[in-house]
């Protein structure tokens, strides 16, 4: 993605590189919760566990309480809580729920 403006050959190289090391791009994740409810806490701990196990340290996780930033719900098009937004790598995904179904979380994160 970084070499979008480079010549065709450069682009091809980048593409090939990305094919050989697909897992290396950093995951940018944002978890939106609605207050410190049991469900929120469960989601946070579940998510942290999964990240530690599958993403090693190659991720960024931000946890945002919508009660503190209510305007973000509209900006980020969030209706359910908790909602995890996977900003990158693309495609953008919204993973909703308390993250107790690890299989589905992984599929949402494109790790499986």
């Amino acid at each position, binding site marked *: 993605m970084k070499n979008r403006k480079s010549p065709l050959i450069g682009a091809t190289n980048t593409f090939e590189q990305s094919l050989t090391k697909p897992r290396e791009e950093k995951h940018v994740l944002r978890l*939106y919760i*609605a*207050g410190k409810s049991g*469900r929120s806490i469960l*989601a946070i701990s*579940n998510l942290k566990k999964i990240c530690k196990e599958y993403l090693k340290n190659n991720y960024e996780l931000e946890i945002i309480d*919508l*009660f503190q930033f*209510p*305007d973000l*719900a*509209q900006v980020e*098009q*969030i*209706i*359910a*809580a*908790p*909602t995890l937004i996977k900003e990158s790598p693309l*495609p*953008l*995904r*919204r*993973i*909703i*729920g*308390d*993250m*107790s*179904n690890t299989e*589905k*979380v992984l*599929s*949402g994160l494109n790790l499986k």
Partner: protein
Amino acid sequence: MSKIANANTTIKLPKSPTGITGFDEITLGGLPTGRPTLVCGGAGCGKTLFGIEFLVRGATQFNEPGVFMSFEETIEELTINVASLGFDLNKLIKQKKIALDHVHIERSEIEETGEYDLEALFIRLEYAIDSIGAKRVVLDTIESLFAGLPNQLILRAELRRLFRWLKEKGVTAIITGERGDETLTRQGLEEYVSDCVIMLDHRVTEQTSTRRLRVVKYRGSVHGTNEYPFLIDESGFSVLPVTSLGLEHKVSNERISSGIPALDDMLEGKGYFRGSTVLVSGTAGIGKTSIAAHFAAAACKRGERVLYFCFEESPKQLIRNMLSIGINLEPWVKKGLLQFQASRPTLYGLEMHLAVTHKFVNEFKPNVVVLDPINTFVTNDKEFELRTLLMRIIDFLKVKQITALFTSLTRSDCGLEGSDAGISSLIDTWLLLRDIELNGERNRGIYILKSRGIANSNQIREFDLTDKGVKLRDVYIGANGVLTGSARIAQEAHENSEMLARKYEIEFKIREIERKRKELEAQVEAMRTDFKSEETEANKIIEEEQQMMKQLEQDKKVMATSRKAEF
């Protein structure tokens, strides 16, 4: 409408006026304040617009800001869509009177990983409500959530919570829902929103579409239960609460001319009552429009405003045609006293016609309305609907004290009176134009079939369309009824010659008597002369006799003296 307003004060349930024309009348005040209302209907029936107008009117007329949460259209789309109705959403958003939020759910982006709730939606809605202090909320169409979120159980529980939350929040809300197969809404939202349910409908019958609105349910309030036609046009939504009218309209004793002096004469010499309903029915080409045009022109001459609906001719054609019988309508059009509304009856459904009529009448505020003709609206099998339509139009016009003239084309193969019998009871004055076929001719006859409150003439009069308008002819009654056309002319000639003959006879008689008088006088004179001469003769004789007697006496005396005798 003041009666309805009074009735409203006895009802405890507070209501928020929608500002939608007519709707507040059928619901006696608007939507229930602080409660959610479900507006359901099929695609394209105007649910979104109803919601938008509720908010815009609330923000602009009732100082109640509102939040519009759209689950389908984006903010840009909405703004553009309603701009055509004269609503400037951007301005209202800037003024913080309206907040728009587009909830976009992309099914493919979402992965469910366990328990969740819609708290984020609540937060979002609350934030929007609080940011402008909203009193009104529209959720359009919340059922889209069902397509975006797979877990129906959670969704249903959350919706129930949402509507309860809206009530607690005290906002007057409209929730729209797509119509389902057997239920009011596809997802059964009526289970959750049960205070007030409004159904919008968009039906197509015989290729014409009509929009209808019905208040299915209104907890704690009386409401009109009928299906009301409504319009969506450049000024927004308008519902017609026409059947709510009673027969309580004022009546006028004022009389207005029909525009034809001889016809006025048949109506006690004064014409129609103001605010009455006149029906002119007759077969094709008999002159219905001409009579209508006379009436229109006469009203304009009095300085009144006339709204002329023509369903068969274009205004230009009508003006041209009327010019040929000496009625010039053009100046009145230019003066703004006469307005034509021409459209094919098939353009809209019946209800739509009603709505359009309402709209134009409200805009133009005429004294006289002409509908020419009414029965092209429908074919015979829809008589009931035509009747309802007319009843509504008539009621509406009567309340406004507008004199209405309808023309109606009757088919010659069925009875003239029969074909219009269905609407007869609605009509105050009914002029029947009929062609009288006699001696191989067709002539025009007019008579007043009925005229409520007027001692009308019972004559069938013949009339002609001359270059000076409709002229009623004198009545000639022969052995076979009224004489018309050449039979009338023959009768006229016959009567003329008879009159002439009589005149001669009288003159003759006068001369005769004169002659006789002269004769008599001559005789009298002659007799008098005779008498005179005889009298003179007699006097002479009498005198001679007396002379003789005197002589005799004298002679006797002389003789006695001579004899010295005593007497």
